């Protein structure tokens, strides 16, 4: 005899105990220290910080450990923690022109003030498995040079000085308190560029990569050059009204990409270069370049460009689907029981079939 299923509570408890055991893996293998994750899986930590929208490498390392290395699960843990934190205020915009640079390249100029600095990059490595890493790791000392203290101006500012690059204007009334906050106000359309950039910087890297790629393949084509890509540390400061002056409270690593895109011009405006912009926590140049391309694509309407069904140019499409916490949550909710709805569908299909079969028989 069937009895209504009971025991969901015990099943959940047991499943979570099993999960904890599986997360730890073979106990004879040493436990991972957070410092190991932070130092040796730094790019995974950076991605969790960027999409989790919270700059804290130790917490991101903890999230990765707890999530068994599942990036999106780790991002989710960070987001759920972030949402409980109070908002003290708004910092000044970071000055990426004052960045302590570890990498800086331009694809549009062979050389520029500040020079090209390759930095710690995978570029030009041969992707051959390094079997030496399998049995412990001795790293040869990389050669060092004294740090340069000369200014490294943004490369696109040289174009700007000539009037070839469309200048960026801060939106009207853009005091610190006027910056829109995606996490505190509902997303409504049309979304202005500051809000779009906010959504993109915490958006899913894979989604943005694919969208950016689609613009390169002709869906909203707008040929982009990497005007400049720079990675390094910037200082974060805020004005504290109680003290009456600015206080620097953090130094964070960011990746910034400015793309140079052609703009054909219009009746009122001569041809000019335009900019796509990407700024991401940590070292994440794939994401920053993708973001710049998608940002530029989303300016299609403002620039009066042809918008023939290219997903990357459609702000409502991009912003509604770029968040991997929203998308993975909704996608996976179909694992939850749907007996009731399915039962209703079952009855409906049976009824429709009964009626259709009866009509067929009557016809015969």
């Amino acid at each position, binding site marked *: 005899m*069937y*009895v*209504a*299923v*009971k*025991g*969901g*509570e015990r*099943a*959940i408890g047991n499943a979570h105990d099993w999960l904890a055991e599986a997360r730890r893996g073979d106990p004879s293998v040493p436990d991972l220290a957070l410092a190991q994750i932070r130092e040796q899986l730094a790019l995974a930590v950076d991605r969790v910080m960027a999409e989790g929208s919270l700059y804290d490498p130790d917490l991101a390392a903890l999230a990765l450990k707890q999530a068994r290395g599942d990036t999106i699960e780790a991002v*989710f843990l960070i*987001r*759920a923690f*972030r*949402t*409980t934190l*109070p908002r003290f205020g708004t910092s000044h915009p970071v000055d990426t022109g004052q960045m302590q640079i570890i990498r800086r390249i331009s694809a549009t100029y062979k050389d520029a003030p500040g020079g090209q600095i390759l930095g710690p990059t995978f570029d030009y490595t041969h992707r051959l498995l390094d079997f030496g890493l399998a049995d412990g790791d001795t790293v040869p000392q990389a050669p060092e040079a004294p740090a340069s203290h000369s200014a490294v101006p943004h490369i696109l500012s040289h174009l700007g000085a000539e009037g070839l690059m469309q200048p960026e204007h801060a939106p009207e009334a853009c005091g610190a308190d006027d910056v829109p906050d995606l*996490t*505190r*106000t*509902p*997303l*409504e*359309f*049309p979304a202005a560029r500051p809000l779009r950039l906010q959504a993109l910087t915490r958006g899913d890297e894979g989604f943005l990569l694919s969208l950016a790629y689609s613009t390169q393949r002709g869906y909203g084509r707008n040929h982009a050059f990497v005007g400049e890509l720079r990675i390094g540390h910037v200082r974060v400061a805020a004005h504290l009204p109680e003290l009456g002056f600015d206080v620097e409270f953090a130094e964070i690593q960011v990746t910034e990409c400015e793309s140079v895109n052609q703009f054909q011009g219009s009746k009122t405006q001569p041809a000019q270069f335009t900019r796509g912009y990407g700024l991401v926590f940590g070292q994440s140049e794939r994401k920053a370049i993708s973001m710049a391309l998608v940002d530029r694509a989303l300016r299609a309407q403002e620039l009066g460009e042809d918008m023939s069904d290219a997903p990357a140019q459609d702000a*409502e499409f991009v912003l*509604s689907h770029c968040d991997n*916490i*929203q998308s*993975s*949550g*909704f*996608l*996976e*909710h179909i694992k*939850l*029981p*749907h*007996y*009731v*709805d399915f*039962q*209703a*569908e*079952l*009855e*409906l299909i049976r*009824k*429709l079939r009964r*009626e259709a079969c009866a009509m067929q028989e009557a016809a015969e």
Partner: protein
Amino acid sequence: MSAYNFAYLDEATKRMLRRAILKAVAIPGYQVPFSSREMPMPYGWGTGGVQVTAACLVPEDTLKVIDQGADDTTNAVSIRKFFERVADVAVTGQTAEASIIQTRHRIPETPLTEGQILVFQVPIPEPLRFLEPRETETRVMHALEDYGLMQVRLYEDIARHGEIARAYAYPVRVEGRYIMDPSPIPKFDNPKLDNSHALQLFGAGREGRIYALPPYTRVESLDFEDYPFTATKAAGQACALCGSTSSYLDEVITDDAGGRMFVCSDTDYCASRVAAQSQEDAA
């Protein structure tokens, strides 16, 4: 859990939610945008309902959580445990005892009473979404009461199938004005929405929308004069446990030879009927 505020959310967030709820109550059936928070459970798993419940809870409340009509389905257990942990409120499985009931996909069989709040978890709050994917368009359609597209859709169902082929999330019209998605409840439950004694609140977390049906609101399921709405369920069956012929039934497969049985989806309703019957037998 002293690190978290009562019912998890901070008071400023609750105030924001309560403002949205008040606005929703003032304009029945209208979807109020709100700034949905990331919750410790995934979007799509009841975050909207959880935020609405958190905003309504007071320490004296008694909470019931159901999913598919049952208190013991895994996600209902998980949400109930969450509130036990972060709000330390009394919980119950009995519909009549609860002051707040959070539900997914069902309305309890036991009629609700004044003072009770029923909180629905909503996946897609926009009834026009699958006719028009753009929010910018559907908001204008609601504003202009431009519902022709929905009428045409229902008419096409009749032309093709001989009836409106919607079994759940069957659209309703609220007080003759807004068309509203009642969340994916079976259309069997639609009549319970109408003129309910309880306050009915709908929370869609991922989509950032709250809407409401204040008590005694007129709620009509969309239909045509010559094709009136009918609430349906498994035809000609009775619950194998309590014998009810009037409750919504789930079909359970009992063997691999086509054997099946039907049982109440509302576990509290079913269990209380079984208990009453065994008392009668004993007497």
